[in-house]
């Protein structure tokens, strides 16, 4: 659910909901947004919240009138798959732009069925697309399976492995930007490492326990590519995956 670099801690278990909401609100804002560079044109005229909302709108764009190229194909597929599973996503209900602690980018709060986006940490549109993809994978898992987010670290580990694997978090390019160089099978190393980081950000457990959980579930969860049917290395793969998802009735009735 939450990762050191990319997510924020999830909501507290139901019985602790009396306290705060959002997320291990260790997530009170520690620094104000004004000083943040890098948004170019938008910085001068919009607050972080407005920027977050605008970028989110663009990510979720599925309008046919804008042409098939509009929006993000990873997100389009996830939204379709969730709708198909009975969890249609409503922007106002299921997304929230907020200030977050540290350099976490987002999180999925299973107790409120809400994706939180860290408006002070999401750098640009591409980053927004990836964070939304990552969190929607958690939401998708929550929708289609009984995931014991708060009581079974293996379930949490599984969803984190899937999210790191399928969202583009561990693409070769992203790893190079992080100065993690490696080629042969490096993707799997990245997925393990990021899953462990994410678990440690939201659970008060040792690295060894987190690592053990990831090791136990890795084989199964790394190979679970739902709803993509493959690891989408870039938008082309994601578009093909979306095409296959839309074709699934024909597919299953003819094999």
């Amino acid at each position, binding site marked *: 659910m939450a990762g050191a670099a990319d997510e924020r801690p999830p909501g507290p278990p139901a019985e602790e909901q009396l306290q705060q909401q959002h997320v291990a609100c260790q997530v009170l804002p520690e620094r104000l947004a004004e000083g943040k560079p890098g948004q170019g044109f938008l910085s001068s005229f919009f607050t972080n919240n407005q920027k977050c909302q605008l970028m989110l709108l663009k990510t979720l764009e599925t309008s046919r009138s804008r042409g098939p190229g509009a929006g993000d194909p990873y997100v389009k597929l996830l939204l379709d798959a969730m709708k198909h599973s009975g969890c249609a996503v409503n922007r106002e*209900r299921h997304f929230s732009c907020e200030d977050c602690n540290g350099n976490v980018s987002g999180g999925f709060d299973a107790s*409120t069925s809400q994706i939180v986006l860290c408006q002070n940490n999401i750098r640009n549109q591409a980053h927004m697309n990836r964070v939304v993809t990552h969190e929607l994978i958690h939401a998708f*898992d929550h929708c289609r399976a009984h995931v014991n987010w708060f009581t079974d670290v293996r379930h949490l580990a599984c969803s984190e492995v899937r999210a790191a694997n399928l969202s583009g978090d561990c693409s070769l390019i992203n790893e190079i930007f992080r100065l993690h160089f490696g080629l042969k099978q490096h993707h799997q190393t990245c997925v393990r490492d990021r899953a462990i980081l994410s678990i440690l950000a939201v659970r008060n457990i040792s690295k060894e326990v987190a690592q053990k959980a990831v090791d136990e579930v890795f*084989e199964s*969860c790394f190979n*679970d590519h739902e709803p993509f049917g493959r*690891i989408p290395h870039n938008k082309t793969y994601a578009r093909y995956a979306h*095409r296959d998802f839309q074709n699934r009735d024909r597919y299953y009735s003819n094999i």
Partner: protein
Amino acid sequence: MADGGGWRPPRPCEVYRAEWKLCRSARHFLHHYYVHGERPACEQWRRDLASCREWEERRSAEAQRSLCESERARVQATRKHTLVWALRQSPPADWHLPLPQEEKDQ
């Protein structure tokens, strides 16, 4: 799988071609090596494309059989790992419920 009357290839032939082309591309080689540490295997897509075209042209029963077998093997490959969690029969009851009141008051 319906024979005769209603059957058609699980994917349009253009899709088999697109998958084969993607599989054989240099970029895919790089992605596949990065993930699996070995080169990709693309021969099956080529065979499926050939079967698809053969069925389109001559309604070959052998082509139909070959395609079905190939796609079933693909589906089986995705299902060979036991899931960590139990799948739901219906979505979470609170997915569409409004946010808790305290949230709204803020």
